[in-house]
């Protein structure tokens, strides 16, 4: 099986690269890129929350920035206002994001497709404007800054995310864990229920699945992913700001996900990496890098409508067919369109 070998090879190479980043990258380019790759990991987790809803349940959310913002503010307010230490603040961020997702999900998942997209964006706009207007608490557009508490205090030895290498590994560990959880859930009976709803919600309800409850579960899970990424981003930037709750932030995650390949585990990572790397490379040479980003989004959609990972998977399937001399079985998780 060339396909299996190729997949394992790529996964090993990818993992080896990610583990080696703190030593490899400073030697090859410079330290700055370690923080860029940290940022890519955080944003790809955020894009994964869009992917979980859109790629696996068929709900296009345009409001994930709301839960990202709650994760962010949970951490920032936890540290700055309540004087929490690292882990409780992290927990506060995640729990408040999930609670918000539960409350808005109760209403939002009753709707589907266009209506769902609009109501999620409306909810996120409501809280964006609230955050902007409650300046004493949230700092509005300027945001609030905080100093980073140590992660652990190990018998006098203090570990803190101010060390870029430690910060990188912390983010890598958290993001990997989340993606692993997502992988397990998608391959569980619950995940099969998600896919059934994505492909046809009427049929799913007729075979006895509780469509409303499953969608709500997925929505809260997506809120969890967005909350974790928001909390990580707050630690990474040491601040929280209302600007990250605007609908354009949600929109970017949708674009990264679809360009990378919706409905694939690593699609959001690929899409996010592509856009952020281009932004970082081009913006230092040319001020108008948005032109290239925009052009790229259009070209991918026209020439690779299933996203980059979707394109790659299609190529793998053709490889399989040639090996076996017959059409490969169609895999359920590889479709970009719900």
């Amino acid at each position, binding site marked *: 099986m060339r396909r299996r070998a190729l997949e394992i090879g790529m996964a090993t190479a990818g993992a080896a690269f990610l583990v080696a980043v703190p030593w490899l990258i400073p030697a090859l380019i410079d330290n700055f890129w370690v923080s860029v790759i940290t940022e890519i990991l955080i944003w790809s987790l955020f894009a994964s929350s869009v992917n979980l809803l859109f790629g696996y349940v068929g709900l296009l959310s345009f409001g994930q920035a709301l839960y990202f913002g709650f994760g962010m503010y949970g951490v920032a307010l936890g540290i700055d206002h309540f004087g929490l230490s690292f882990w409780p603040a992290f927990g506060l961020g995640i729990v408040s994001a999930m609670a918000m997702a539960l409350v808005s999900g109760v209403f939002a998942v009753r709707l589907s497709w266009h209506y769902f997209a*609009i109501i999620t*964006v409306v909810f996120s706009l409501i809280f964006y404007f609230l955050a902007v207007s409650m300046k004493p608490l949230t700092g509005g557009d300027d945001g609030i800054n905080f100093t980073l508490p140590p992660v652990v205090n190990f018998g006098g030895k203090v570990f803190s995310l101010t060390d870029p290498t430690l910060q990188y590994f912390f983010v890598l560990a958290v993001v990997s864990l989340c993606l692993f959880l997502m992988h397990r859930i998608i391959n569980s009976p619950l995940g099969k229920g998600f896919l059934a709803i994505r492909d046809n919600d009427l049929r799913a309800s007729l075979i006895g699945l509780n469509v409303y409850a499953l969608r709500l579960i997925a929505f809260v899970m997506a809120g969890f992913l967005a909350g974790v990424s928001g909390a990580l981003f707050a630690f990474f930037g040491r601040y929280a700001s209302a600007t990250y709750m605007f609908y354009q932030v949600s929109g970017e995650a949708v674009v990264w996900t679809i360009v990378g390949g919706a409905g694939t585990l690593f699609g959001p990572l690929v899409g996010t990496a592509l856009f952020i790397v281009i932004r970082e490379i081009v913006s230092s040479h040319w001020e108008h890098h948005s032109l290239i980003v925009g052009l790229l989004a259009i070209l991918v959609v026209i020439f690779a409508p299933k996203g980059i990972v979707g394109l790659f998977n299609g190529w793998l399937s053709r490889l399989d067919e040639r090996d076996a001399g017959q059409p490969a079985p169609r895999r359920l998780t590889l479709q970009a369109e719900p």
Partner: protein
Amino acid sequence: MRDTVLLLAMNGLIWGLIIALIALGLSVIFGLLDIINIAHGDFFMVGTVLAWFSLSVTGNFWIGFLVAPVIGFVLGAIIQRIVIQPIHGAAALSIVATFGLSLILQEIVRITFGATPRRMLAPIQGTIPLFGIDYEIYRLFAAAVALAALGGFFLFLQHTKLGIWMRAVRHDRDTAVAMGIPAKRVYVLTFGIGFALAAFGGAVAAPITTVDFRGGVDVLPFCFMAVIIGGLGNLPGTVAAAVLLSFLEGLIQSVADPTIARISSLVLMSAVLLLRPQGLFKGFVK
């Protein structure tokens, strides 16, 4: 107190008429091509910038009223042909494609027009007394122009061959094609008209708002709300919803600050979505 209420309500009403023009463009594109157009706010922004350029080049404000929709139409037609047609009406893909379009339009404006927001002087200065307050003449004029354009568009849709083609393709594409209607050309035309409506709205609104390369960002969600509250595919509903939303926001602004007003209109919007997802006007507008 009564004067502020009246002033803000009037402002809201007139802004609503302009938004209605833009939202109508969005609704037409959405209904006929099934394209979720993230770049629509930027079409409006392009209109304001075109008005600014034609004023500074020719010194005549009114040329902008002609230039903005014409250039908008041409740009829209070209964009449809190059970007929209290849994705075959896949709604999820259209979000990405129009997002890219939005970035490109904003960046081109930033290169040519600059990043600093500018204000444009209204071509008609002065105020007239109206219900006991002094009201800007240009705003009244803008309302009249917007109303005329809305009326013109509905006449076009009802009574011209192209308008009938557009309605036919929207109603049943396959039958329309079988009857010999060139559907592909109708799509190009529709996208052009959608862009032209937004750009014209921009030209009318230019002296009322600021001309800025990010000017479309705030307008976009508002237009989508109008389209949804009015009911998908219900064009008169879209217009009514835009005017109603903006009028209500103006009213609330007279007792609370603008952000609170925006939040309350958003809350209202969620209530409509949850209670009447088919739109506010289904049942009494055919």
